[in-house]
């Protein structure tokens, strides 16, 4: 009984974890969905901050804008734009799965790649829309 697996203090074997698998689009999309969800949770706090700053009058709004328009602020906002695009597109992919569509191995891989491409196109598109002066139409 030199190496009994049940012996107290003996390390029990672990099931294979992340590091052992070959990376695939489907698993990367699943991880990214969770990561963007957590990022957007922080985004809800920024939304609340924006609404409160607007309700506080001109000085309050200025204080929000002075932070939001810094380089770090703009990169963060781009992160939120991409996270929202990704989480919504991949969320629609998940809802399709829930209804039984797109579970085929090839289809799931293709829609996974499509979500990455489309989410980047949307996020870059939104910023390009602003930088080319098309935003602010609700004046």
């Amino acid at each position: 009984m030199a190496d009994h697996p049940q012996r107290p203090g003996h390390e029990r074997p672990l099931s294979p974890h992340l590091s052992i698998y070959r990376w695939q689009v489907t698993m990367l999309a699943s991880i990214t969905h969770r990561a963007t969800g957590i990022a957007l949770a922080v985004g809800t706090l920024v939304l609340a901050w924006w609404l409160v700053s607007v309700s506080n009058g001109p000085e309050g709004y200025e204080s929000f804008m002075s932070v939001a328009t810094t380089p770090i602020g703009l990169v963060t906002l781009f992160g939120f734009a991409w996270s929202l695009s990704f989480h919504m597109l991949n969320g629609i992919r998940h809802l399709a799965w829930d209804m039984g569509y797109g579970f085929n191995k090839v289809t799931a891989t293709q829609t996974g790649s499509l979500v990455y491409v489309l989410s980047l196109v949307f996020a870059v598109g939104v910023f390009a829309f602003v930088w080319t002066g098309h935003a602010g139409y609700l004046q």
Partner: protein
Amino acid sequence: MSSLQTPLRKVEGLGVSHSGTGHFWRQRITAVALVPLGLWFTYAILGLVGTNEVAILSFLAHPWNALLMAAFAATMLYHMSLGLQTVVDDYIHGTGMKIFCLLLIRFVMIATTVTCIFALIRIAAST
């Protein structure tokens, strides 16, 4: 085969997990609602970028816009609490720490929802 479940548990379809498909279903309902609400939010934010504070105030003071913004914030925060609960369920195993995290998520969710709606009421009242 005999069952150890009480008739009430059988009827409710609940076992030792204390809950059924409610969490799963609420996450889907809020997800579906957030597709149109998220698209409206994108339309609103893009329309307000580069304008001034007066334009933002008058936009958010409009009843329909205030209602949609409140619906978007409340639905997103509820969806957020369901999603973060899943993350806690997956990665945090100690009972005490798990209860602490789940309570924190719910308190932050409710506090942020109330803050957003109160700010919208203040904006509507100020114009």
